[in-house]
């Protein structure tokens, strides 16, 4: 039976744990802040400060990716993650450029909140999965 994913490295395990924790924190933060804004209708500086809070979680996720790239001793795994990041950045930016153009000239509705964030991580996960399957090793 082919070993598709192989044994994760220590750095990969830490990466998944950290990313999972920050992801949950992000979802919790967005949920709490969204509820607060719906109930209290803050405006001005307070609303700006609240809007900035989820952005810190996004920065934390990028830091987690950076830590993985620094801690991972297997350079091929690092290379695969960099490829996945490039695909995710490229796809997300291209999609947003396409949607923005249509919004400018066809009056289509804006995408839902946090759309880019979701697309970025989904594409990154998909590319990582594709690379893992493409580079799978079979029993010798």
């Amino acid at each position: 039976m082919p070993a598709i994913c192989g044994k994760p490295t220590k750095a990969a395990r830490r990466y998944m744990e950290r990313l999972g924790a920050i992801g949950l924190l992000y979802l919790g933060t967005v949920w709490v802040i969204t509820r607060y804004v719906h109930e209290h209708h803050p405006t001005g500086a307070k609303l700006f400060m609240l809007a900035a809070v989820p952005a810190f979680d996004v920065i934390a996720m990028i830091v987690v990716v950076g830590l993985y790239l620094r801690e991972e001793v297997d350079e091929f795994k690092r290379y695969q993650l960099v490829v996945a990041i490039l695909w995710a950045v490229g796809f997300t930016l291209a999609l947003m450029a396409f949607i923005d153009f249509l919004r400018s000239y066809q009056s289509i509705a804006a995408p839902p909140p946090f759309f880019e964030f979701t697309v970025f991580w989904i594409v990154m996960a998909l590319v990582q999965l594709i690379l893992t399957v493409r580079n799978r090793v079979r029993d010798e």
Partner: protein
Amino acid sequence: MNNRLKELRAQRGWSQQALADKLEVSRQSVNAIETGKYDPSLPLAFRMARIFGLRIEEIFEDAA
């Protein structure tokens, strides 16, 4: 870049996993290098050379 990794590994009777363990990389890395999907960095190429007791140019050759 072409390499003789598979041949050298076979001569020594090492599995991909055994070589990966010696190099402290994943088996996927060894497989990707052997199949030419990935060219290793200079430090990893030096580690390979040390493990096989050869010079780098005896393992890798420029495809051009």
